């Protein structure tokens, strides 16, 4: 790995220019913030796509209010008179999933929080490969731009689900899928560079005294998540390249013999296998779930430890559990494929590993829960988000059990139950952790607090509306409502009125409830967005560099941190969560505090 002179600006005291400082920066903090803004913008965009889809589901065939004309201008035949056509619905569905997973949530966790916090928390002056870090952001941005550009090509973006299952993805005669594949190759390259950097930084650049079991739990989760990205993403890249070859050269590695499209034989040599794609896809996409959840658990652990004012209960168990989680997560992928006719023996293997992978998740959650016991809890906004993560992730996890068992999964597969399940994990789970993390580290990044009142409005609103959105989906799914129906299932319900297995009115009515939930969720994000920008200038200033009275290293340097983080290399003397240690005058003992100084009365 060639790495030219680490910091060209090092040693020179001249201030770097605007481009070097903010656009082509090699400072991990700036890159982290770049990742943060970009991924949150993508998250908002993915959420807008969803809003339009929820309108179509609740009011099938009715023109989308406010932006109907705009849709027609951009998508032409796919949005005549502003009505969302099934094709457009498929495009938005595919892009919502792709954007949320690959361009929003993973980059915000590993790109934004990972970049900003990993070097500071291990006591390093920057990432191990600063230029690679810059390239990683640029690859990500470029991949994102390719994805967005596909909205404006004739035929629109990819429309075969975020999973891009062939044969569908190969027989749709537009270029959207090609853009999707090219975009993914860039995103995967970006995550490869990012994870090499994160792992090398954690292994090589730990400050003196920062032993493995003195690392904050967040660092452990980033470490495991980086390994998952490093090792599980490449098979999807392989699959993406093969699909690109299929798409561009007319080969048929994913197309079976005897494929007919619209009643006519397809022009393909055949002999390929759509199931092959599913294996390669889910070999990434299941570990990806743990990339989505592990750093979120890390953020939550940091916030909780700080706000209960006592050590985390079972820190070591949590570390080992996160390692076990990483290892087991690559052995469960085929539980997404019970319906492919894989046979009971293989299904049994994968449902066993699936049950096993829930054990370490439960260990981590239980440790966090027990940690609360006897703490003097501070209920500030970050803590509210972190606390809420626990029950919300628990709902997400527990609703996953019936999906992990092949027998019950056959009924629930591809229904709204699945949607409800994984959105509980990712939306009020991971995204709440992200919100909590933003409120928690904002004072370190800017030197000012975010507004507490509007933070609580944001929190309570989000909590209520998230549940209004996702709780009904569990019922809809159990009633048999399938996902990916552009009319929300109304045609199915009408054509089977009264018949066994039809969708009752109550289930269909929930579509409108969910729409209102989505509108409400959009409204309560406004105070958050304003809060982020207004607090930069008007927020309450922090009284000192460690406003939350925290122990980890990022709070032991100036605010915002100096360009190379620490004026003097920190030396670590203790574990990450030494709160309320008997014998010390303060209720927190920073990791940098030597044994003999300070506090022994």
């Amino acid at each position, binding site marked *: *790995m*060639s*790495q030219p002179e680490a910091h060209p600006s090092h040693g020179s005291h001249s201030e770097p220019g605007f481009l070097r400082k903010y656009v082509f920066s090699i400072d991990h903090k700036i890159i982290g913030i770049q990742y943060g803004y970009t991924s949150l913008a993508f998250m908002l965009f993915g959420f807008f796509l969803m809003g339009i889809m929820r309108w179509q589901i609740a009011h099938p065939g009715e023109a989308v209010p406010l932006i109907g004309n705009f849709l027609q201008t951009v998508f032409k035949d796919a949005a005549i008179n502003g009505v969302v056509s099934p094709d457009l619905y498929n495009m938005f569905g595919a892009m919502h999933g792709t954007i949320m997973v690959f361009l929003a949530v993973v980059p915000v966790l590993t790109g934004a929080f990972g970049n900003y916090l990993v070097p500071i928390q291990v006591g390093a002056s920057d990432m191990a490969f600063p230029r690679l870090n810059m390239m990683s952001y640029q690859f990500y941005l470029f991949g994102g731009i390719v994805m967005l550009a596909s909205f404006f090509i004739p035929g629109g973006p990819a429309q075969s689900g975020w999973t891009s299952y062939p044969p569908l993805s190969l027989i749709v005669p537009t270029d959207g899928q090609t853009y999707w594949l090219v975009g993914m190759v860039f995103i995967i390259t970006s995550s490869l560079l990012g*994870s090499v950097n994160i792992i090398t930084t954690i292994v*090589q650049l730990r400050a003196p005294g920062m032993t493995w079991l003195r690392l904050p739990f967040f660092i452990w989760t980033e470490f495991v998540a980086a390994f998952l990205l490093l*090792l599980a993403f490449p098979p999807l890249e392989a699959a993406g390249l093969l699909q690109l070859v299929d798409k561009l050269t007319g080969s048929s590695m994913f197309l079976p013999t005897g494929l007919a499209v619209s009643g006519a034989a397809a022009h393909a040599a055949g*002999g390929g296998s759509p199931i092959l794609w599913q294996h390669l896809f889910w070999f990434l996409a299941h570990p990806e779930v743990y990339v989505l959840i592990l750093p979120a658990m890390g953020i939550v652990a940091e916030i909780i430890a700080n706000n209960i004012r006592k050590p985390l209960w079972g820190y070591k168990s949590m570390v080992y559990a996160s390692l076990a989680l990483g290892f087991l997560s690559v052995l469960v992928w085929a539980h997404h494929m019970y319906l492919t006719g894989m046979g009971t023996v293989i299904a049994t293997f994968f449902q066993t590993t699936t049950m096993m992978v829930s054990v370490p998740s439960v260990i981590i959650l239980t440790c966090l829960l027990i940690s609360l016991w006897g703490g003097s809890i501070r209920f500030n906004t970050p803590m509210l988000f972190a606390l809420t993560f626990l029950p919300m992730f628990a709902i997400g996890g527990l609703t996953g059990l019936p999906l992990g068992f092949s027998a019950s999964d056959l009924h629930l597969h591809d229904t709204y139950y699945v949607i409800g399940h994984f959105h509980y994990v990712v939306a009020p789970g991971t995204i709440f952790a992200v919100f909590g993390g933003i409120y928690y580290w904002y004072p370190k990044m800017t030197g000012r607090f975010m507004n507490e009142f509007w933070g609580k409005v944001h929190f309570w609103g989000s909590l209520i509306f998230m549940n209004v959105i996702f709780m009904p989906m569990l019922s809809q799914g159990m009633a048999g409502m399938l996902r990916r129906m552009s009319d929300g299932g109304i045609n199915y319900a009408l054509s089977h009125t009264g018949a066994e297995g039809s969708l009752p009115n109550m289930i269909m009515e929930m579509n409108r409830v969910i729409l209102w939930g989505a509108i409400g969720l959009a409204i309560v994000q406004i105070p958050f967005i304003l809060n982020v920008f207004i607090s930069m200038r008007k927020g309450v200033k922090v009284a000192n560099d460690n406003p939350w009275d925290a122990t980890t290293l990022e709070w032991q340097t100036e605010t915002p941190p100096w360009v190379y983080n620490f004026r003097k290399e920190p030396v670590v003397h203790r574990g990450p969560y030494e709160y309320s240690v008997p014998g010390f005058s303060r209720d927190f003992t920073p990791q940098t505090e030597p044994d003999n100084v300070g506090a022994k009365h």
Partner: protein
Amino acid sequence: MDIPYTSKVRPDTGLYNGKLGVWLFLASEVMLFGGLFSAYTYLRIGAPPDTWPHGWMNVTLGTINTVLLALSAITTLLAWAALKTKQFGRYKLFGLLTILLACAFLGIKSYEYRDKLTHYQVQLNDGRVADGHLVENNKDADYILLRGHYAANATELLDGRAKGHPAHEELKIARADIKSLKNYGPALNNFLAIYFSITGLHAIHILGGIIVFAYLWGPGSKMWFTAPARFTNRVETAGLFWHFVDLVWIFVFPLFYLT
């Protein structure tokens, strides 16, 4: 303030940053090619009976390429060893040899690609198949010229081992007799599709290696006079990558050529 351990080894891990970085990168590459070789296995096992070709590749050319890469692995190692013993001239020599061997590999590979892409299977209306290299395909003429031979059907062409080469002659085929005309590209069957995918990606890696070695041989080698330890590390990490690329070929060769 420089990043620590860019040239020195961190005592407790025994590594400098670049070395750990390149090993992690290679771990990821193992999974990338692992995914592709798994796909190869899956397609081959899942192929319907009598559809997977054998002996379609030129074993002689494949063997020559294998030898070229094996030699280049030795020259990279010698180049690095030369730097370790402070013989910059020797480094320049072996570095150049590595680049030349890699270029020769790519040359042979492109010849093989060209050979496949100009090789056609012509399905005739009477059920027979004409197989050979296209000599003339003038759109205005009502015939095409092919240098090859006739076979009873496409299945007969699947096994290229042992049969010896049927006599090749110039075949003049009337367009009216042609049902379909396909070259030995990825679209012909999955053997060729996965062959072009894997060897294509491998060739891109070879090209990447050439670029890195050329940089370290040319402009990048100035670093030898300012930071020799760090420059030696760079050559070592580039060499690690190169050995991995060679190793991939060790799997490619039997899976596609000796099958």
